[in-house]
């Protein structure tokens, strides 16, 4: 058989998908054709790469809807907050006009007073809604995170705050606001822990932007509710894949 007839069968040969008689023909040809053997080697590389491929699987359909729903809710909330801020700005503008000289103000009093009254009603509603939104997820605890003495040496403005909010799922959302928290060293990352006695639970790993403020949002499992100490460690992985850590910040849940 000629190379041109063998070539189209080589991928199927590599996959082991030829009929027995075709398989024999390909083997016979390969025994005497170095070009086709070279081609076969290339195809085997692809076949070996396929070993690393994940098995084909679609994620469940509901996942996409859930993600889009979360995005939609957050976007709506954000746009609603923007509208509230615009209303508040408008109210402030009206208040400033009230503080104008009395003679000028009296000319417009008939117009302004009903407007102010209306604005006040709007403001009360807006503030009610605004604080209502805030009340949905109040932080149950605000924790000052301070550096350990050796970490603090020579560092200025190096501190953090953690705000903990309960989630409907039972998880605790932890918002970290870290100030001048230096970037982790190479092969390192930071990790937040909830500690109780000799047990600890990880709330996840993160990195830092270095100078200025770093904000991180993490989710801690429900069991962390009874863990009263927060700890941020810098985790190192060396070439031998052993792990070590240094404590960077810690704080106590009040």
């Amino acid at each position, binding site marked *: 058989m000629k190379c041109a007839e063998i070539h189209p069968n080589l991928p199927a040969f590599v996959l082991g998908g030829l009929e027995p008689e075709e398989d024999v023909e390909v083997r016979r040809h390969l025994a005497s054709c170095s070009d086709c053997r070279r081609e076969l080697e290339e195809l085997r590389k692809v076949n070996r790469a396929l070993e690393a491929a994940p098995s084909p699987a679609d994620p469940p359909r509901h996942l996409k809807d859930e993600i889009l729903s979360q995005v939609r809710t957050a976007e709506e909330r954000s746009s609603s907050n923007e509208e509230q801020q615009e209303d508040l700005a408008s109210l402030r503008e009206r208040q400033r006009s009230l503080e104008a000289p009395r003679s000028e103000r009296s000319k417009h009093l008939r117009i302004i007073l009903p407007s102010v009254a209306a604005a006040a009603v709007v403001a009360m509603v807006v503030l009610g809604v605004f604080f209502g939104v805030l009340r949905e997820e109040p932080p149950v605890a605000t924790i000052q995170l301070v550096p350990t003495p050796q970490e603090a040496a020579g560092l200025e403005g190096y501190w953090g705050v953690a705000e903990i909010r309960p989630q409907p799922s039972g998880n605790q959302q932890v918002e970290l606001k870290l100030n001048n928290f230096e970037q982790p060293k190479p092969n390192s990352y930071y990790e937040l822990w909830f500690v109780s006695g000799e047990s600890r639970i990880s709330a996840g790993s993160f990195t830092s932007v270095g100078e200025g403020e770093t904000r991180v949002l993490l989710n801690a499992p429900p069991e962390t509710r009874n863990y009263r100490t927060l700890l941020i460690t810098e985790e190192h*992985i060396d070439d031998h894949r052993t792990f070590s850590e240094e404590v960077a910040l810690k704080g106590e849940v009040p």
Partner: protein
Amino acid sequence: MMYQRADEISDEQCMTRLTGPEVEAAISALYDRYSRTVYGVGLKILGDRSLSEELVQDVFLKVWRSSRNFDPSRGSFSTWLYRVTRSCALDLYRKRASRVRQVSDGDPYIAATRDASDGPQEVMDESWLSWRVSRALEALDAPHREVIELAYFGGLSQREISERTGVPLGTVKTRTASAFKSLRTELTIQDTSREPIR
């Protein structure tokens, strides 16, 4: 064989739309293009369906929240998304592994060393190759991907694929050969343009 519809916006364009009114359409397009890869790599790394589903959610919400961190001048969207996926998978892996972990004696806050067998590093090592092969497979059109999936993952012969799909045997062979050629090209391109992943 590698396809991109002319009216399809690029991944990078989708990213710029995540901060505007078209956010849902943009995240939806990215999800359609990458969710199989994220889920598949998640299954390979985490070995658990429920955690892999959690991973898909975490990754796409992080893409949306962190879209401003994506800088196309520093690398492709696919590579950036791989990093996000890897980081989220690492978090899930570690969270699962250390839900409750005992700390060594002495200072209750410092564990000097950690058992390497606990480490997720080994699990993550293969994930970049998995990602690249998955992306190469996703870049095939459906008929070509189907023959590879049935042959490689299904273990079917060319004749069995023909019988299963109703596609003539000659066409199955042609598609298998073309798919291999495309995978070879795609993996070579990815290899030469390989970006640092850590």
